[in-house]
């Protein structure tokens, strides 16, 4: 199976750097001469798990070096070696070296091999001088692959308890059969009468004649798991063409024989080289290289759009070949864009995986019981988005546990399971990703939220729709918790959460049922680099409205538009009264339609509120490559970015969240 391990590299680096910090501070705490075994154990564990990860993910220099550390620490741990100041110093310097190796591996730069080698030599020297009473080294048996067909006699007599360790002789003998040809003779001497037998004890034994082209090690490996739970003898009865094994030099043709008899590779003892060569299917590339690739593809998409636009004016019959070429270019550009984007995609797991521990720790602190259900962890999202969504999600999960989930006795009294459930869900919806954080706690209290808002001087209508009331929890400094806790504080963070999500071009919606829990839904663009947009015109200008924010567009009738003194105009759309916002006025444009019934209204929605944007015309729908306005010009209120159109003109992308907020709030005030 081809699995790209590079997706785990970042996590590996993070946890390894953390591990080094742990080692460092623990080493500094070590009391020479009276070392605390728990502290040594902590240091050992960190080195050990770093080694395992490094070997698995193919950072063999890190694995090799940490192996030395581990060996030294193991001697200390088992009491074979006293903890001396020299050793502690050596270990501290080693921590620095490993940090250097990891940094080099992470950034694809060269490591300082000189200091690595020097310290490696010192470590080896120290290990050699170990005053160990028993040899700690585990000499791996030299594996001499016997290629000739041998006749093995095997006696396998499991102990009574074998089944209880989860092993099945049937599986073991079946595996043995894959090595070669065998004859199995059952030994039922020890089989008791049915009456006195224990169904879960093993009484049977086997004598097996195996004709196989394999070494003793391969045979032993089959029995490795049950070696200590059985009486096992493996005898070489007859060694066919044994000389061939020793005189390996002229036997160039021998391997062909092995291939013909097939199915044998699995049985060969696994070695570390094989494990690492299996990962050669991936390379690590710096993100800046990918970013520049994405940028270039973006430019290509623009050029392609430009060509398409120019070609539209040509006669398709006269320019048939050109047209075919252009449509091919269109398809290829699109696939290329998708392919490049997918390089940066990572599974949501990267964020979700931190929550089981968080929930457990927090629940313990709060005296609550909670379990975490995760759905759609494998949903992929752009790396840059995933990194930025981690903190907001963290806040939301903490908030659910702190304010949503009730104490066990309260839950039981309400007829619920004493343990609450927090669900994290991720799924793709068109060009966006939906992330949900829900709990089955007490839900939001409408009356309390309204009262609190009034107390804080926030204007809110008593009969505002629920969606609007729930959004109050995102207001700065807003909190309804009766007590301030150190978990999610006084609502500090919730306003930041929303700001962060909006900065990503995302939206937050809340649903809540009293006593049954609440759900926070976050909708995010899959990537920050492209956007599905609706292009609209106002006078000479083209604006892009993010498609996921567009509810509908319509041409209003004159009688549906009303002016309200001092509050501008509103429009009635199927019984709903919405603020009417002429884009022309928002951006102070000199041209464009002024009468609503002559233009088009685009209803945009954000955070459960809608406004009707008035534009001249709908131009079309297209995918646009987002260019930052801030880095190329400066930030403009109501605009989230810019893009280059097919004809070379710059179009501004509307910041829907900001437009709705500015205009819907005016309305409520």
């Amino acid at each position, binding site marked *: 199976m081809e699995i790209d391990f590079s997706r*785990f590299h970042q996590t590996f680096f993070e946890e390894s750097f953390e591990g080094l910090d742990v080692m460092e501070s623990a080493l500094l705490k070590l009391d020479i001469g009276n070392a605390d075994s728990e502290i040594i154990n902590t240091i050992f564990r960190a080195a050990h798990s770093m080694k*395992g990860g490094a070997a698995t*993910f193919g950072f063999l220099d890190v694995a090799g070096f940490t192996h030395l550390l581990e060996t030294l620490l193991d001697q200390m741990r088992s009491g074979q070696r006293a903890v001396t100041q020299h050793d502690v110093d050596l270990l501290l310097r080693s921590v620095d070296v490993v940090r250097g190796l990891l940094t080099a591996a992470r950034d694809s730069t060269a490591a300082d091999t000189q200091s690595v080698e020097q310290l490696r030599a010192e470590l080896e020297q120290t290990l050699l001088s170990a005053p160990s009473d028993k040899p700690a080294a*585990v000499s791996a048996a030299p594996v001499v692959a016997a290629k000739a067909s041998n006749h093995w006699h095997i006696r396998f007599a499991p102990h009574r308890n074998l089944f209880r360790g989860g092993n099945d002789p049937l599986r073991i003998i079946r595996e043995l059969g894959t090595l070669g040809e065998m004859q199995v003779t059952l030994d039922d001497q020890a089989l008791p009468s049915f009456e006195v037998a224990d169904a879960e004890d093993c009484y049977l034994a086997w004598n097996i004649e195996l004709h196989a082209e394999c070494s003793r090690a391969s045979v032993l490996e089959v029995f490795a798991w049950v070696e200590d739970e059985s009486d096992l003898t493996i005898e070489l009865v007859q060694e066919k063409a044994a000389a061939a094994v020793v005189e390996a030099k002229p036997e160039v043709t021998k391997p062909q024989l092995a291939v013909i008899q097939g199915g044998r590779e699995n049985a060969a003892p696994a070695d570390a080289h094989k494990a690492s060569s299996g990962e050669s299917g991936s390379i690590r590339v710096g993100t800046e290289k990918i970013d520049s690739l994405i940028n270039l593809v973006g430019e290509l998409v623009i050029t392609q759009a430009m060509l398409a636009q120019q070609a539209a004016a040509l006669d398709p019959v006269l320019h048939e070949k050109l047209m075919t070429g252009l449509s091919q270019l269109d398809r290829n550009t699109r696939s290329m864009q998708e392919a490049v984007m997918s390089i940066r995609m990572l599974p949501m*797991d990267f964020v979700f995986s931190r929550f089981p521990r968080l929930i457990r720790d927090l629940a313990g602190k709060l005296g609550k019981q909670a379990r975490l259900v995760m759905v759609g962890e494998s949903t992929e999202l752009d790396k840059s988005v995933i990194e930025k969504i981690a903190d907001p999600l963290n806040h939301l999960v903490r908030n659910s546990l702190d304010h949503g989930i009730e104490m066990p006795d309260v839950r039981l009294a309400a007829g619920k399971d004493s343990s609450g459930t927090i669900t994290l869900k991720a799924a793709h919806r068109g060009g966006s990703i939906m992330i949900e954080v829900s709990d089955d706690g007490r839900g939001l209290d409408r009356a309390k939220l309204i009262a609190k808002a009034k107390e804080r001087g926030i204007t809110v209508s008593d009969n505002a729709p629920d969606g609007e009331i729930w959004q109050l929890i995102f207001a700065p400094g807003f909190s309804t918790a009766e007590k301030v806790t150190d978990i999610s504080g006084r609502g500090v963070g919730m306003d930041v959460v929303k700001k962060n999500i909006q900065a990503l071009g995302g939206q937050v919606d809340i649903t809540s049922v009293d006593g049954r829990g609440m759900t926070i839904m976050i909708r995010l663009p899959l990537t920050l680099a492209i956007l599905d947009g609706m292009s609209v015109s106002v006078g000479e200008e083209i604006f892009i409205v993010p498609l996921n924010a567009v509810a509908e567009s319509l041409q209003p009738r004159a009688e549906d538009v009303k002016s309200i003194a001092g509050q501008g105009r509103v429009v009635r759309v199927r019984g709903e009264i919405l603020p009417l916002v002429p884009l022309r006025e928002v951006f102070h444009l000199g041209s464009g339609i002024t009468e609503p019934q002559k233009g088009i209204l685009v209803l945009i929605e954000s955070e459960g509120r809608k406004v009707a944007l008035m534009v001249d015309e709908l131009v079309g729908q297209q995918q646009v490559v987002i260019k930052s306005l801030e880095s190329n010009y400066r930030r403009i209120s109501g605009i989230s970015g810019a893009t280059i159109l097919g004809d070379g003109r710059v179009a501004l992308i509307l910041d829907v969240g900001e437009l709705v907020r500015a205009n819907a709030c005016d309305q409520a005030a």
Partner: protein
Amino acid sequence: MTRILAVDDSTSMRQMVAFTLKAAGFDVVEAEDGRVALDLAAKEKFSLVLADVNMPNMDGITLVRNLRTMPDYKFTPLLMLTTESTPEKKMEGKSAGATGWLIKPFNPDQLITTIKRVLA
């Protein structure tokens, strides 16, 4: 669906194991130490448990020992993830009731072959 409990305090190892097993069509639940794993195992019966040896809070050997005392896990395959440098851990794990072990580093194929063989 066959559900496997993967226990490792190293997030990257755990993710690799979970990812590989999921790709092979297994359902995987992750736990970051023995204690969390034990809690999960008490709530549902997994078809197989794959546990690292060295973990904070509760190590893999203690986890196996505890699991074996639970009626639901009397015969369940319990595999330890060990390294070649700690052979004594294999035996310690075995006497605690482990079915077998997998030696780190392993590649996805080795992992899947072993798991499938045990679950066959």
